[in-house]
Each structure stands twice: as structure tokens, then as C-alpha cells.
């Protein structure tokens, strides 16, 4: 049958109008209109058995579960639909910066706690014994045992039931189903919550979308940013001949941290960079646990191809330079490693970076230029000073400074320190080592250095006057050696 084109158009339009009219007159319920909605509330599991509190104490390991990753590198998803997770609470001494032994409270006996990885629809069967009353091997200077609890941001449960505080020796067990994808914080929710989080009681629970992520990554790492507020123990106790540090309650309430760190350690991932290779896609799960500061997370030398806010691929941005995370906010960022080099992870709130929120992704050494290569071949073996103060300065330099500085091997994150005593006076160096952040406010040379080195500030290492003098002795010794004879023990990362 032949239908003239005009009639065909009119009929099509009429059908369209009719359809539109039908849609207007009989609106469908939102749930029915989005039957494929992954957030369909009617399909979520919102009920679970009541939590069980007993006085049966866990023994053995403080953390258990196939879904747990204990370090920076994340294990692949455990395929089991039920994740059995055990994270006991402990009190222990941790080292948050060189020589800073801090009396911490933990989940799973580490700070941050182990990372849990699950998938939407998985059931988490969680148990926790409050083992804060157990004496940790070696050191018995931790805080008094106290009540603790667990608050999973990934769960949709009654806090009055599941997040109850339990006394030392008690065990709580509860379960919940992961309904939303994301990178969720967990933390102790016992008053004062501020103190419990600042003492180390936090971690991440990653929930993958039901169908997995839309991209394929070559490397996956967790990066948890947090603050520490510490002061020397008023009782002047020592751990391994080093002063014990305890929570500084006054500065905690004023949100004036002593350290802002990635994965629990000041400059930890500068000393132990995250490995990657040129051409690889790196996926970072970033979580800012605070408790009180915002993070402006950036990786120097690349652009985030994808940013999934709160770790949910439905909340996607493309081509971002930084990601802004409030306390208890997260994101998954993905980027390509363009070429060999060290890519610097940093909180671009540089006051936070200066307190230790810096890390490296090591994608191999940059091929040296012809000139540098020749210099390298001309270098003799490392020399050592003999004066005790200079020897101590060398030891300290090699343990604390080599991640960012070289001697005679060119620039790294910071300047090459060969010849530094000829460039700067002792007075200037002393002020710089004592309080780099103050110098950056007032001193033109310090400001120029900051600009020259990609706005990465020198972190305050809280050096004593004696330590500074030892550094200066070492630097002077270096500069009295014959040209070309001194270089630091290692090359670039």
C-alpha cells in the first residue's frame, strides 16, 4: 500500500503527540520507569540480624579475611559473595615519622586499618574483639584500655544496634550488605570520636560496582590521607631510647596537626614509592579520613583521565588536575603514566604537604643525559667523615633526606646539597632546617627555592638544635672534600 510522504510525516507526528500525551496523562512510578536502575531501593538488602555482643574474646591474629589488603597495594576482588572480616582493636606504638613513636589505637593492629574489598550485593560478616587491654610485645606504654566501636560508612544499618561501643574483652558481630559502590571510610565511633580517629582508628572499605569497573587498570593502590596531632609524652617516657609521643588534645580541637600523612607515615611513600611502568594505567583509591582537614589531591606530571567521586563510576569527571576531598570523602582516580619518571602525589594544600602528605609513583629512572652519564662514570666510591657529629649528620641525612636530596648527583625532589655551605650561611641553613615553613613566609631565597622545585616545600622534620648542628658539620665536611669525590650513596629513585 502506498502512503503519500506528507501523510506518513503527519501520522508519525500524531503518533508521537499521542505517545507524549499518554506519558503526560499516566506518569509511571519512578521505580518502574527505571527498572534497570542499579540503585533500585526495592532490590537493596536493608535488613540484617541484630548485632551480637559477647564476652568471648578473639585470640590469634588481629585481622583476618580473604578480602583484606594489609598494605598500599590492593589485592584483586575476592569472588566470594560473603566476606568474613575480623578486625580487632589494639593499642600499640607506631612510628609516624622518623623518631616519632606515637601511642596509637588501631583496627587490625595497624594504621590505617586493613583495606576491605567487596562488590555491590556482597554480604560483610564482621566481627571485632576489643583487645585494647592486651599488652603488645616489647612496649608497654600504650594508652589505657577503653571502649571502642566500628562505624562502616558502607553499611545501611541501625547505628544503635551495629555501632555499639564494646568494653575491653568484649566481641561484637554483625553483618550488612553492600548496596552502593564506593570507597567508604570505616572508623571508631566511640566518644570522643575526634580522638579515636586522630589516634589511628580508620580504614577503607572498597565496594566495586556489581559489574566491576568500566576500565582496566594495571596497578591499584590505596592512598589514605590523615592527620596526626602529637606532643612529647608529659611523663617523658621513651621507646627504644626515643621519646614517646601522645595525642595532643589541645591542637586536635583546634585542628592544628603535627603531621598530615599518606597511609599513616610521614613521607612514607617517598621512602617506599609505589611502582608503575610507563604506559600503564594506575588506579588510586583516595580516601581522606581527616579528621579535620580537607585534601586537594594531585599527582605532579599527569592528569586524571577519570575521577569517580566517592569511588562510584556513576559520579565521573574527566581530565581533572586535582580532586578535592573533605573529611570522610573519597575518589578513585585513574591516569596513564606517560613516561619514565617519578610522579609526585601531593596534597596541593601545601601546608598539608609540608607536614608529610607526599608520596611517589616510581615509573623508573629518567634516562640520564650524556653529560650526567659522564659525571657518573667519574665518581669514586663514597667517602665518610670521621668527626662524630659529622658522622651522625651523615647517618641522619641518609635515613631522612635521601628520598628528596642527593649529594653530587643532581636535583631530585629537592636540590643537590653538594656545595650548599658555599651557597648559604650557617645561620640561613639553621633557620631553614629549624622552621622551613616560617622561612617560606619571609625569606626570598626560600621562596625562590620553592618555585624552582615545583612548589614542593621542604617538610619540617622537627629537628633539635643538636641534630641541626650535626647536619651542618656533615654538609661542611662534604664541601671540604676534593671536587668529584663526594656523592650520596644512591642514585635517583
Amino acid at each position, binding site marked *: 500500500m502506498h502512503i503519500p510522504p506528507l501523510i506518513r510525516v503527519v501520522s508519525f507526528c500524531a503518533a508521537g503527540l499521542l505517545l507524549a500525551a499518554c506519558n503526560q496523562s499516566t506518569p509511571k512510578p519512578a521505580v518502574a520507569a527505571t527498572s534497570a536502575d542499579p540503585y533500585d531501593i526495592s532490590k537493596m538488602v536493608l535488613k540484617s540480624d541484630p548485632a551480637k555482643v559477647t564476652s568471648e*574474646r578473639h585470640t590469634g591474629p588481629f585481622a583476618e579475611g580473604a578480602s583484606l589488603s594489609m598494605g598500599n597495594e590492593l589485592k584483586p576482588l575476592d569472588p566470594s559473595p560473603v566476606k568474613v572480616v575480623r578486625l580487632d582493636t589494639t593499642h600499640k606504638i607506631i612510628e609516624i615519622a622518623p623518631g616519632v613513636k606515637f601511642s596509637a589505637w588501631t583496627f587490625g593492629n595497624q594504621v590505617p586499618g586493613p583495606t576491605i574489598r567487596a562488590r555491590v550485593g556482597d554480604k560483610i560478616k564482621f566481627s571485632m574483639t576489643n583487645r585494647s587491654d592486651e599488652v603488645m610485645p616489647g612496649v608497654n606504654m600504650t594508652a*589505657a584500655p577503653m*571502649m571502642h566501636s566500628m562505624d562502616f560508612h558502607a553499611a545501611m544499618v541501625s547505628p*544503635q544496634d551495629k555501632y*555499639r561501643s564494646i568494653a*575491653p574483652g568484649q566481641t561484637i558481630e554483625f553483618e550488612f550488605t553492600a548496596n552502593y559502590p564506593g570507597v567508604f571510610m570505616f572508623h571508631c565511633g*566511640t566518644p570522643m570520636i575526634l580522638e579515636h580517629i586522630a589516634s589511628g582508628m580508620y580504614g577503607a572499605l572498597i565496594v566495586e560496582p556489581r559489574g566491576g569497573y568500566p576500565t582496566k587498570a594495571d596497578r591499584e593502590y590505596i592512598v589514605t590521607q590523615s592527620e596526626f596531632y602529637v606532643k612529647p609524652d608529659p611523663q617523658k617516657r621513651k621507646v627504644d631510647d626515643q621519646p614517646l609521643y601522645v595525642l595532643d588534645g589541645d591542637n586536635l580541637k583546634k585542628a592544628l596537626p603535627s603531621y598530615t600523612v599518606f597511609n599513616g607515615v610521614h613521607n612514607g611513600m617517598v621512602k617506599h614509592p609505589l611502582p608503575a611502568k610507563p604506559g600503564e594505567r594506575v588506579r588510586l583509591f583516595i580516601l581522606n579520613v581527616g579528621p579535620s582537614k580537607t585534601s586537594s589531591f594531585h599527582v605532579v606530571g599527569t592528569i586524571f583521565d577519570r575521577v569517580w567521586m566517592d569511588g562510584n563510576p556513576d559520579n565521573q569527571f574527566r581530565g581533572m588536575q586535582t580532586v578535592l576531598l573533605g573529611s570522610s570523602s573519597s575518589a578513585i582516580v585513574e591516569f596513564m603514566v606517560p613516561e619514565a619518571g617519578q610522579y609526585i602525589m601531593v596534597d596541593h594544600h601545601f601546608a598539608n604537604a609540608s607536614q608529610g602528605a607526599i608520596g611517589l609513583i616510581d615509573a623508573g629512572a629518567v634516562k640520564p643525559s650524556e653529560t650526567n652519564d659522564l659525571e657518573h662514570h667519574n665518581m669514586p666510591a663514597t667517602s665518610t667523615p670521621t668527626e662524630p657529629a659529622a658522622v651522625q649528620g651523615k647517618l641522619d641525612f641518609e635515613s631522612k633526606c635521601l628520598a628528596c636530596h642527593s649529594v653530587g648527583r643532581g636535583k631530585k625532589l629537592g636540590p643537590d646539597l653538594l656545595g650548599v655551605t658555599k651557597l648559604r650561611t650557617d645561620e640561613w641553613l639553621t633557620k631553614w632546617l629549624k622552621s622551613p615553613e616560617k622561612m617560606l613566609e619571609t625569606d626570598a631565597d626560600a621562596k625562590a627555592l620553592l618555585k624552582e622545585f615545583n612548589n614542593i616545600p621542604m617538610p619540617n622534620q622537627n629537628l633539635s638544635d643538636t641534630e641541626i648542628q650535626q647536619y651542618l658539620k656533615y654538609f661542611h665536611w662534604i664541601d671540604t672534600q676534593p671536587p668529584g669525590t663526594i656523592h650520596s650513596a644512591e642514585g635517583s629513585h
Partner: protein
Amino acid sequence: MRAALHALGLILLSYASAASACGHCVEDKVAAVYDYAVVTQAFKQKHQVAFFGIDGALVVNDNSRREIEAIARDIPGLDKGSMRVSLESAALSVAFDPARTSFAKLQSALERKLAPKKLSLLPMRVIDEPAKLKTVSK
């Protein structure tokens, strides 16, 4: 006398259930005044530790804290120096000798001293052995 005790028991139960209606708050209040040293010392002496919520308009300052801590003086059976007060969480805890007083008598004695401040106590938990925080109604 028996009837009076029965009535007191019912009152305690009703207070306990009122407090237990928000378990999260109860556990938090307990945590705020849970002092491990006090609890450990109490166990050594076969004493118990009582946890109460404070009901009423609390003034949060050092003076108010001192006044509430002072009510523990001269109460028979109460362990000297064992009272812990959290004004922020509106809670207090105290160790006592069950051979010399009961939870109910202790509460009455404390409340008599708090009455001029228009404050009363909500029974929350009692702990009489390690790792067992019992509801008061039990």
C-alpha cells in the same frame, strides 16, 4: 516494704528501658565514663561499677563538674575516688561494694544529692565481671 521494693524495681525497669531505647547513646555514654583503671580495681575488690546517664539541664563547665564529683562524698558503700563524670556525654560512673549497698540504693543516694541541681539519674549499665556490661534491669 516488699511492695515498695517491687515498685522501685518497676521504676528501675522503666528507666532502664527508656535509656535502652537508644542503645547507641547508652553505649556511648558508658564509653565516655568507662575508666579501665577503676573497673580493674573494682574487680580486684569484687566490687561493681555502675553507669548512669544524667538527666536535666547540665551546665558544662569545670565548676559544674566539681559539684557533681563532690556528690560522691560520704555515700556508704561507694568507692572513694572512683566517680567519673562526662558533662559532654551527660554520664557518670562510680564503683561500689555490693556487700554494703545496692545499685538502687546507690542511685537514690546520688539522686538525693543531685536534686538541688534539678538533675536525676538514668540507670544504664552495671559491670560486675570483666567484659560484661549488663543492663540494669537484669
